[in-house]
């Protein structure tokens, strides 16, 4: 608890300095969820996103290849019936959270993007619908890693 409070204080101090120095706008500092993207493991990210332990659901579809030859470019998509937020997580990446999306009303619960994977890992598709978090998991085998070098 104390540790968490400390890091929050640290982040806000750093962001405050950067904002006052004009390096970044304050709006941007509020928008980008630094803590979530720097969370190392799955549980960290779930906690920061406020997802707790999401239920596995068949309503969420994760479109990802079984085998990705090149870990630098892995096409991943999430499709579901309804969503307010969606997130893509890679269990064995240095930071689990790859991308997070906010879906306003009128936009379909569908998104596709391309991510990097360091090694073979489970990929998680997370969806928040009606205030509840759901998820689906798929293992993607990577022949050539895309994070190191």
């Amino acid at each position, binding site marked *: 608890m104390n540790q968490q409070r400390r890091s929050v204080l640290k982040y806000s101090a750093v962001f405050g300095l950067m904002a006052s120095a004009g390096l970044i706008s304050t709006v941007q500092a509020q*928008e*980008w969820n630094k803590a979530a993207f720097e969370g190392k493991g799955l549980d960290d990210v779930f906690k920061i996103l406020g997802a707790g332990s999401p239920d596995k659901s068949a309503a969420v579809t994760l479109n990802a290849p079984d085998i990705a030859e090149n870990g630098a470019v892995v096409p991943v998509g999430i499709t579901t019936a309804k969503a307010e937020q969606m997130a893509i997580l890679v269990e064995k*990446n240095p930071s689990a*959270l790859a991308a997070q999306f906010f879906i306003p009303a*009128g936009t*379909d619960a569908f998104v596709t993007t391309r*991510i990097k994977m360091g090694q073979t890992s489970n990929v998680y598709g997370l969806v928040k619908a009606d205030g509840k978090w759901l998820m689906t998991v798929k293992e993607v085998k990577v022949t050539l890693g895309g994070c190191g070098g």
Partner: protein
Amino acid sequence: MADPMRVRAAENGGIVDVKILMKHDMESGQRKDAAGKTIPAWFISTINVKANGKDVFNGQFGPAVSKDPFLNFKYKGAKGDKIAVTWNDNKGDKRTDEATVS
């Protein structure tokens, strides 16, 4: 100024399919240069898409999104909608490109 993005938006049956290809290195912060020094992370952190001035999509990227990020989503709209895509990266650079739904 960063390189332009490619934005394609096509309407079919009341649903607009938007495809965006951004031009960005998306340096992961994990790679090392020839001297063994870590290359600092440099990536698009936030992306916002507006249609006729109204938000239709917001995204946040980490450094684990591929180089030259691709994004595809769909929203309820019509032909002639003006799409404006804006990204910000973690170094404070930004770019906006516009397209018209066909």
